[in-house]
């Protein structure tokens, strides 16, 4: 009888160590410094949609003074090692994130160190509070170690961090991630959206699968957005506020906090490809898109006035330029790759670097300045700006009739799928 508890605890200890070793080795969420083995765990296939769980751990180690906020567009496009950014910049972008969760991320990050520079990218979809956005609901489970839901500092941050790491080793959820990571290694270079290589600074590099047509990639992403949050109302719709949540209130509260913190902030409307801008129009949301831009500007000015500060620069890259109108490879062309875009919403690091050059006034020897890429929004000129964008859209659509037809087909497909 005396040895029974010892035996029990010893067997339990052995089993849990074994499980922990397995999860450490496969390391599906990049929590540990275990080796990357070809065919076993090189590609972290489960990581992309679990970043809201992992990034608080990385950010805590990094204690950044520069910060990139936003969705997957910023995550894959903005390089935290860009020379115009502070040396220790962390890319805290999270896929599918909504503005209220971005506010939570900022609340967490500001408690980590002395932030001097923030680049916050703003995406139209992040302001949709429709409950039909399943992917967004997941990221709303973001929970940092330092800040509570109100942004106040919580005690025992190290304890929570230790708990997270322990669960990374011995949870079934992570064991499931390990098994799926192993299973999905072989086909990832050949199929679908390809693979992602993640860095501990928070950004990633996406490589499309070998056989993937880039045009198809545009279609898939467009249809996902139409499908998830837009079409058809009332089950799927685009709304800025509901009974529980107002996206603009969250945005205003976030800016107010940033003004109080005295941090330098650049607000950036993501550089969407011209085809995706047409997708917004075809979906009947262009009016909302313009209202959104106006509100971003108005709230920024109002919050600056309240704080007695100069408004943060607000840049609009969802515009028409040589870069955002880059030609999409033709049907059946699976070998040509675009320089600036992965799909209509996600841009490459090359375009991201140009964006950072522009907003941070950085002279780059690699890129020349492209006219029309990024406009500073101001109260006195926003009307003219929006009219200009509308005119350029008419021009683009007139010269890209096939793209427009293709888009309309996508809309019909989604509409009929979701109506049934």
């Amino acid at each position, binding site marked *: *009888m005396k040895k029974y508890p010892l*035996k029990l605890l010893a*067997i339990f200890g052995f*089993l849990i160590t074994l499980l922990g070793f397995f999860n450490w080795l496969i390391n599906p969420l990049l929590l540990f410094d275990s080796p990357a083995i070809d065919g076993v765990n090189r590609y972290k296939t489960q990581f992309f949609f679990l970043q809201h769980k992992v990034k608080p751990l990385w950010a805590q180690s990094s204690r950044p003074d520069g910060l990139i906020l936003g969705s997957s567009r910023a995550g894959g496009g903005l390089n935290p090692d860009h020379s115009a950014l502070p040396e220790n910049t962390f890319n805290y972008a999270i896929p599918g994130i909504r503005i209220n969760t971005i506010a939570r991320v900022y609340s967490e990050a500001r408690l980590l160190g002395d932030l001097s520079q923030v680049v916050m990218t703003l995406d139209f979809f992040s302001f949709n509070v429709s409950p039909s956005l399943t992917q967004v609901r997941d990221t709303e489970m973001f929970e940092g170690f330092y800040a509570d839901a109100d942004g106040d500092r919580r005690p025992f941050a190290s304890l929570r961090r230790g708990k997270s790491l322990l669960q990374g080793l*011995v949870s*079934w959820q992570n064991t499931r991630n390990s098994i799926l990571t192993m299973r999905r290694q072989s086909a990832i270079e050949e199929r679908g959206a390809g693979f992602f290589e993640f860095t501990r600074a928070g950004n990633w590099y996406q490589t499309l699968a070998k056989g993937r047509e880039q045009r198809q990639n545009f279609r898939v992403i467009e249809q996902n957005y139409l499908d998830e949050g837009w079409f058809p109302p009332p089950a799927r719709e685009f709304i800025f506020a509901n009974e529980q949540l107002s996206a603009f209130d969250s945005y205003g509260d976030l800016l107010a906090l940033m003004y109080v913190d005295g941090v330098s902030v650049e607000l950036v409307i993501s550089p969407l490809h011209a085809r995706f801008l047409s997708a917004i129009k075809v979906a009947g949301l262009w009016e909302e898109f313009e209202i959104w831009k106006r509100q971003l500007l108005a709230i920024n000015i109002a919050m600056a006035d309240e704080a007695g500060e100069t408004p943060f620069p607000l840049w609009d890259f969802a515009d028409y330029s040589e870069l955002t109108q880059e030609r999409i490879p033709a049907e059946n062309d699976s070998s040509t790759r675009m320089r600036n875009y992965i799909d209509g919403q996600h841009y490459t690091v090359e375009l991201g670097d140009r964006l950072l050059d522009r907003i941070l006034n950085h002279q780059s020897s690699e890129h020349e300045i492209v006219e029309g890429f990024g406009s500073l929004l101001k109260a006195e000129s926003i009307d003219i700006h929006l009219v200009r964008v509308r005119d350029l859209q008419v021009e683009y659509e007139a010269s890209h009739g096939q793209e427009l037809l293709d888009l309309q087909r996508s809309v019909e497909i989604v509409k009929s799928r979701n109506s049934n």
Partner: protein
Amino acid sequence: MLFNSIEFLFLFLPVTLIGYFLLCQLQKAVWPLIWLLLASLVFYGWWNPAYVILLLISIVFNFGFGKLLLHPGSPAGTKKHLLIIGVVFNLGLLGYFKYANFFIDTAGLIAGSEFSSLRIVLPLAISFFTFQQVAFLVDAYQAKVKQIDFLRYCVFVSFFPQLIAGPIVHHTEIFPRLIDSARFRFNSSDFSQGLSQFGIGLFKKVIIADSLAIFANPIFAESASSVGFSSLDYTVGVIAFGLQIYFDFSAYSDIAIGLGKMFSINLPVNFESPYKSTSIIDFWRRWHITLSRFLKDYLYIPLGGNRRGTFRRYCNLLITMVLGGLWHGAHWHFVFWGFLHGAFLSINHVWRHITRNNADQTWNIFSTVIGGRILTLVAIMLSWIFFRANSTADGMSILMAIVGMDSLNFSPAYLFSISASNLPFIFGGLISDIRILVFIYLAALFMWVLLLPNCQQIFSGQGRIRWQPNLAWASGIALLLLFSVAGLDQAAEFIYFQF
């Protein structure tokens, strides 16, 4: 702090156990008792440190009244007044924190206007430590309490394994152990049993009960009515909740008893295979046994019990069960659930009275198996609808949807919620059809609750499966612990924690 949390398992429990047994070496009971008290206050304060003060006020007040009630020189009339003040204080505290908004809302409903609610946070465990202390005061008044001292009284009320969700311990079950200084030492036999029962309980909670929530939660969600669930979804969801609450409470009872046993403190049995009941009367002798005992001894009997005629008996039964329902939560659907059980018990008593002289063997078998087990189980399952629903009206809608039997297929929305769980991942290789998987899983769990022995039988050596301190059992329990610890990232709190 939750029993099913990393901080409890890897920090609080080991530190508390090691500290306790080290202090036992000092050969003075006072040090391990102080340690247990401090640990229990930390355990309680983990949720909200401010409410430790409320717990301490309640303890000090009740101890003071207990002392006065036990004072040999106090006249009987004074003692009665003291008891009334003591009970009113306890019920007042419970009433304010748990029922104030319920009464305000109800008054508003009657008056036809809306009164603004108070911002009150319900302190954890208040229903449990209030009842425990009310029982203590009544027993002190009736001179059933022999001796008390402040430290032991504090441990009696706050002992962490039973503080949050019972068992509602009677002082006679704990005091003798706390007084016996010879038992303040490490007892390998108790520790082994306690650890094993704890492991079984943890497995039931983390792996079984929480997985059942996946089937039950969608149909009870506030948005369920707009989703378009089918009759089959509702039926399966209700059965799943019946099993979920069974395993959840069974798990909590096993964990509490197991933890107590590790300290060589025997907590009373609170749960004894209630779905094996042959009647509703039998059910209430097996489900939340210590609450039933409290309600019987301190409510039903003082109301007159069965001593004042048949009509009064059934009235007393209904009042007791309605208040028992209200004890679970300040909502009308709990009151209705209590009323249903009061009605079931009354019908059960009437039925027993009618059939008491029937000697027909066939009839008795039929009555026990069909009328007894099956009907009891159906009645319990249907009553759970009102226990779990957000309102009585929601409960009625779910009941109507089940009775309506409009579709014998799962809806796509329900299948989608299940497919998001880990079950298809775990069993996907064996059973690809998710519908078959659901039926097999629920049927297997029903077999468990109806056929397998419970922990009391296993650990007392009375069941077909008997615990023995050997390598096979150590390996089995270690495996259960592994499954449970690895499932902690998905763990939810115990259902009875909210009461």
